[in-house]
């Protein structure tokens, strides 16, 4: 017993040590570098200094004190980025009204979530921690780096990442608010009206503040408008400072939101799930809207029945910046497999397939200048695989965030929790958080199926 305690204590100290040094230096020797954007480099070294990639070439020397990782026979790829997940947060849905643009999941970051470590074990270094889809306009999301080991929620943020917000089309907001509260939106038309109303209110809000600013010059006793965070956020979308990430399935609704955005001159728009994106790929490409999809996951509710595993390939070939996401703390562990499916369904090239989980999600989150490919000057967010990551035999070995090794397969312990329950000896098998399995994107799937089969008792 003492020995176990001792080992656990050591692990704990190691985690704390990581948390303190958030930027690391190290040398990765002699691997096959998959840059994703600039081809592959065999038998090449990669040097990281103070969290950034500073050199890629042969015969590089580690600075004194820096760790060296021998990557002979291994593949070095950019850390995988998940454009849609709900890990590392304590709250997914503030489902109390049809628009909650005033809330922000960045207020509820959870560095203790074991899913963050598990994502690292799948080579994922950053994810888009999203609000759920209960509301037509959900809350702001947060782009997090998987700095497993820190206890401080603030240290999980990817500092400098653009603001993003969750929108949602279709059944979820209709059910939660229409069926649930008997208010708009009860229909798909109503969902559109929630958006338009939100933007109109934001315009009026901006106008009120402009009037005040002008009035204040002449009259120091001018009265400030009432501060409203919902309108503030919507106004920031109008100003182009926030990227919309919209939960969507049906093509007619996708076009609807495109039209709304056109009317309000909103350019930065990413569709999430986008199962019928293949039907409107040219329209998406023409608008510059992007799409984040599942490889082959659908039919969990009615609006998701019309789908194809060729979706990502069709979108890609039509010029839509496309990513494959997890929306699940389980899928996030093998996004490289999900990306590889596009080679079976759509014959994408290695770089095209890898882009789906690296540079493309980075573009969708507005962080492609920092991460998403292996280039000198970029953040040292790196995954090292045994086997090519698109091979079914691929096994992640090391996952590095800002030059700090956050996952090392050879040191993976049975219990990687940062904090345990003092009162319950939980078994590792159940150490998941139910909300991270599936957010409200799948919410209602069961109920709808149950009612279809007449299982409901009402």
């Amino acid at each position: 017993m003492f020995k176990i305690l001792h080992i656990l204590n050591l692990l704990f100290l190691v985690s704390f040590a990581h948390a303190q040094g958030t930027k690391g230096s190290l040398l990765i020797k002699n691997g096959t570098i998959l840059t994703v954007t600039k081809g592959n480099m065999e038998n090449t070294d990669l040097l990281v200094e103070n969290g950034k990639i500073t050199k890629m070439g042969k015969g590089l020397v580690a600075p004194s004190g820096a760790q060296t990782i021998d990557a002979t026979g291994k593949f070095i790829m950019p850390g995988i980025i998940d454009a849609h997940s709900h890990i590392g947060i304590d709250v997914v849905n503030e489902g109390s009204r049809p628009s909650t643009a005033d809330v922000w999941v960045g207020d509820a970051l959870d560095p203790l979530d074991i899913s963050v470590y598990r994502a690292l074990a799948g080579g994922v270094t950053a994810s888009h921690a999203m609000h759920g889809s209960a509301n037509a306009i959900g809350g702001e999301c947060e782009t997090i780096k998987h700095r497993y080991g820190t206890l401080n929620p603030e240290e999980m943020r990817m500092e400098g990442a653009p603001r993003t917000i969750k929108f949602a089309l279709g059944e979820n907001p209709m059910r939660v608010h229409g069926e649930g509260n008997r208010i708009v939106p009860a229909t798909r038309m109503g969902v559109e009206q929630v958006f338009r109303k939100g933007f109109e209110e934001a315009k009026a809000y901006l106008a009120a503040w402009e009037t005040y600013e002008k009035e204040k010059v002449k009259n120091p006793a001018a009265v400030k408008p009432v501060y409203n965070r919902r309108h503030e956020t919507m106004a920031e979308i109008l100003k182009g400072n926030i990227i919309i990430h919209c939960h969507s399935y049906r093509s007619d609704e996708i076009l609807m939101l495109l039209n709304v955005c056109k009317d309000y001159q909103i350019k930065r728009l990413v569709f999430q799930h986008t199962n019928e994106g293949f039907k409107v790929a040219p329209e998406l490409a023409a608008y510059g809207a992007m799409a984040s999809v599942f490889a082959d996951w659908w039919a969990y509710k009615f609006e998701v029945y019309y789908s194809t595993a060729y979706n990502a390939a069709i979108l890609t070939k039509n010029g839509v910046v496309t990513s494959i996401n997890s929306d699940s703390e389980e899928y996030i562990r093998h996004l490289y497999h999900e990306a590889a499916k596009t080679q079976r369904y759509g014959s994408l090239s290695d770089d095209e397939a890898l882009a789906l989980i690296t540079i493309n999600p980075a573009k969708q989150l507005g962080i492609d200048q920092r991460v998403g490919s292996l280039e000198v000057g970029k953040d040292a967010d790196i995954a090292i695989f045994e086997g090519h990551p698109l091979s079914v035999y691929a096994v992640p070995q090391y996952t590095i965030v800002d030059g700090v090794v956050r996952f090392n397969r050879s040191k993976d312990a049975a219990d990687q929790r940062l904090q345990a329950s003092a009162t319950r000896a939980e078994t590792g098998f159940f150490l998941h958080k139910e909300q991270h399995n599936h957010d409200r994107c799948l919410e209602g799937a069961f109920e709808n199926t149950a009612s279809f089969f007449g299982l409901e008792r009402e």
Partner: protein
Amino acid sequence: MIIKDLVFSRWIYPLLKKDKVTGFFAFMLIGSCLFAQSGIPELTPVTQTYVLQNVQIVVRPGQIISGGTVIIQDGLILAAGKEVAIPAHARKIKADSMFVYAGFIEGLSQSGIPRPEAASGAAGPRTPGQGQQRPRVSDPWNPTYEEAGITPYVRVRDVFKADDKSIEEMRKLGFTAAQVFPIGRMLPGQASLISLGTGKNADELLLKENTGLIASFSPASGAFPSTLIGVMSRLRELYKNAARLQEYQKNYSANPLSVNRPVADKCLEAFFPVLDGKVPLIFQAPDMKSVYRVQALKNELKFGVHFADLKEGYYVGDLLKAEGKPIIISLDLPKAAEEKKPAADSSKSVVIKDVEMEALKARSAEEMKRLETQAAKLAALGLPFSFSTVGVKATDIKETIRRMIKAGLSEDQALAALTTTPAAQLGVSNRFGTVEKGRTANLVVSDKSYFDEKSSVRYVFIDGKMFEYEGKPAPKAGGNANAAGKGAEAPKIAGKWSYTIKAPGMNSEGLLTFKGSGSDLTGEWTSSQVPGTNPISNVSVDGNKLSFSSNISMGPRQVTLEFNLIVDGNSLSGTVGVGTFGTFDVSGAKIDGQ
């Protein structure tokens, strides 16, 4: 027997209402009962001067006067020391060689605040199959302040009950004053320092009004803000709009002829003292993440803050040290998980050592150690703190402090947390917290060192008024369980209950079935939303509180439901937490007629 509020009068002892009285008073019993019932007011004692001789005066933590004398007169400490002249009219209290401490102060408390009624009455239990109902929120877009749990205007004096039994429970532990706040959600109201003496109403016991605005991350039920992120957002909005209103009001009073009249707002106005830096936000931050979140909010909005109800301070000692703000740690220390005894016939089967379970238990034990060590760790960092009793059973308090001492807290540090630190945090050190001449006569007299396992509180003085207690707990008499004031008969849980969970758009109804009793309670439940029967786990009954959880699969999802209910006879009410989807109201009733 407890002689509550021993009063000297030439003719009567009107407060002697207890069933047993010592021989000296016995002859007065019948008469006093009659007088008490006929409502004759309490009379002033003949003398309000008391003397405690040859006592260990713990003046303040670390400063002891052995063989000292304490004189109490007219509510104040007249003298405390070695060479003290004893007034002729002083009543001598039998306290030879006992320990005298300054009266304890609850750093944060809900003593004297009655629990809300179990059932709100608005929606009684309904039978399954009645269909969905409109939620009770008037307008989901604009819930009222009350629906949103935003009631910072509520004052303790408006909700305090001077005769609540919690006051006597705390008093007999040695607590003489408490920073009390109203029950509520994100902004439940204003805290006040309240005397734990006897009085007819809150005003008689009010020592200091509005010592801080209480804030927490507790969301509303079914209305915005229904989650942590909603609370964070709403707090920012309220704070900024309070600043706006304050500025607006100033403008208006300066230019009443040219500025439109601002609309008054009792919630926003409650923030004014915080904006002015006169009172802090006393922020409940039990877990480490909450501490970080409070810090982030404070940095953003720049309010004065007290970190309250800390349980995981172990992890954030450096942060707290850097912040240097007042700290109130929670006395709500969980009890260690009870080892399940192996079944009697375990010898028959081969016992397989579960290596993983052993490791998990070790990890749990380690975590428990961190919780127990919080106080010692903060003290070692030189951080003063007081104790919060919010959500704590009075009977657990002494044992909890002893566990903290066992984990490294010194007795002096524990005493500071009970006396000098809360007095300083509340800005009343000139009146409370030490045993010194001129201070309010709030004292605890213990027959041994208070922190000794076998010690008993024998006298408590509040404002110079004496409360006397028996040395040893009265032996439990079978028929007297209720008369003891607490430990009222445990409700009968076993049986069938119907229940309704009110969630927006998804009212769920069904049956709860419990079998067994006490720690052997098991159960299962059915729901209109989930087919089949679901097992219930972690059933716990504490007085009339019933809690349990259940894991259910909804399609691909695993959802944990955490029920926290109050059982009142044949009805139950409370909340259920459904993962991160929120917390919803539950009501129900027993249907098998037991």
